[in-house]
């Protein structure tokens, strides 16, 4: 029992799990009628899932000791592509085309970084602007939306609807969490991701293909960001040019709250999803409690710092008490 507790407390995502629990309890105590209502929990879990897709992808990229700043733009561009292409390709065709686009955008990131041997921070900062720019060019700044028929289409419902009162976005997030966590913890690809992030040269000396492994992380992250964009628009089928702006930074914040470190090799997709929950619920509850919404972005910053400090203090305290 002691061993199990010790193992659990040594998890990368332990701090995030503990924080999320504390936040949930505190909000339940100070705002029982607002926080514990079905509509609040549905909204918070829905927005957590949307951000969570990006956070999980970002976690994989961070674990492989890279960073992707373009996920917010990929999210927006793929969403726009899904809505825009639906007119000519139909919903199903647009879905597949948009997902291919997502992988293409991630592939471009990976290709430039790996081939050019360039820092991912610079390359994905460039593609953050470039991909966002394409949204402006493509939409001309106009708002696009689905017809009534498209809103009722089965695929739109599959991603945007509800399942016994639970938003489908949440179901998809949990499903992908399970898949990604299994990949990371129990497959060769996962072992290579961790190894490449921890010590690329040692991984290479064992014949691990560093370029291919890191590229997989970029592709997965872009695919998840694209899927998140599609899921968002299936729920509210209307695009605007700022769709997903700053989301890459919230995703990085979520992943870091969830136990990822920027020096690579450590992190958890479970933690990243919980990190997304923490950011989303703090935002939601602060606004519900009457804090001005304009302050939200400041709160994200504060939450990030507090969470990281809490993580650190917690692991130090556990280390001391278990010794």
């Amino acid at each position, binding site marked *: 029992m002691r061993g199990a507790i010790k193992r659990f407390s040594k998890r990368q995502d332990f701090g995030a799990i503990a924080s999320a629990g504390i936040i949930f309890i505190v909000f339940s105590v100070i705002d029982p009628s607002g926080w514990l209502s079905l509509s609040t929990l549905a909204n918070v879990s829905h927005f957590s899932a949307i951000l969570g897709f990006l956070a999980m992808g970002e976690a994989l990229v961070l674990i492989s000791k890279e960073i992707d700043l373009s996920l917010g733009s990929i999210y927006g561009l793929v969403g726009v592509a899904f809505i825009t292409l639906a007119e000519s390709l139909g919903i199903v065709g647009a879905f597949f085309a948009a997902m291919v686009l997502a992988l293409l955008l991630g592939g471009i990131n990976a290709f430039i970084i790996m081939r050019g041997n360039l820092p991912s921070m610079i390359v994905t900062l460039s593609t953050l602007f470039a991909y966002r720019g394409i949204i402006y060019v493509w939409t001309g700044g106009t708002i696009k939306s689905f017809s009534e028929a498209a809103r009722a289409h089965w695929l739109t419902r599959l991603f945007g609807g509800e399942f016994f009162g639970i938003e489908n976005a949440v179901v998809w997030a949990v499903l992908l969490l399970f898949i990604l966590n299994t990949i990371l913890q*129990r*497959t*060769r690809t996962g*072992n290579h991701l961790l190894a490449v992030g921890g010590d690329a040269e*040692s991984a290479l000396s064992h014949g691990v293909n560093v370029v291919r492994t890191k590229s997989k992380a970029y592709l997965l992250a872009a695919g998840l960001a694209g899927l998140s964009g599609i899921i968002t628009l299936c729920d509210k089928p209307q695009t605007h040019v700022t769709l997903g702006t700053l989301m890459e930074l919230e995703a990085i914040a979520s992943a870091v709250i969830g136990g990822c470190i920027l020096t690579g*090799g450590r992190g958890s997709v479970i933690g990243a999803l919980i990190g997304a929950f923490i950011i989303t619920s703090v935002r939601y509850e602060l606004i519900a409690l009457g804090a001005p919404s304009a302050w939200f972005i400041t709160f994200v910053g504060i939450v990030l710092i507090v969470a990281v400090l809490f993580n650190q203090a917690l692991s130090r305290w556990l280390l001391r008490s278990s010794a």
Partner: protein
Amino acid sequence: MSDTRPLIEMKNIDLIFGTFQALKDVSVSFDSGELVGLVGDNGAGKTTLIRILCGMHAPTNGEVYFDGQKINRFNPRLAIDLGIETIQQAVGLCNNLSIARNFYLGREPVKRRFGLPFLDFEKMRKKSESVIREFGLRENVSADDEVEILSGGERQSIKIGHAVEFKNRVIIMDEPTNHLSVREREHVNRLAVQLKEQGLLVIYITHAINQVHGISDRIVILENGEKITDIKSRDCTAEELINIIRHGGRVGLAENRG
């Protein structure tokens, strides 16, 4: 002819990085069951030479033969498939992974479930656990512990155990005893001799002749990217060899050759 053929033959190797020539016309061969000391000062080209053997660099000019086969492509995977394993001080183990995960890095065993390949943790633990015991790690170290907690000697032991476990033919040890305690150093050197006695080719790289003179069959000295000496260990004393390095190869070899 085939039994006298060297396991590894490097012919007239040049390696140029930009404007810097790291290796100049180096020709050297290695046999199975031999422990060769590859010696030279820092920057002499020892590590660069073996980086070709482990596929990290391709030579600018020259040819490499492994077991009589000419090597045309240089990549780490091929070196691993040929059974060449390099043991380096700073490289080879990922600190953030458990011993079991490190042990099988790059060739993880998988077990199929629902047709999908999952890591076979049971096998990974069992094998690495036996190596931990066999190669003299602390009693309380388990296969699930992260490599981060191991001492320098324990790390080297894991790498050597890894090399033995995967039935390699060539073990390259790059400064394997740096930063080790005296006891750990002797332990590692004993393992090197054991590997050789099992018929493996062991290339032992060091800048300290005394380290390797006593245990090696042959000493190859590099200086400024050139091979300046290649001599049986029993035909010379460590002092004579140190003298050669001290004078950068300008002292003739004739007086050293028996």
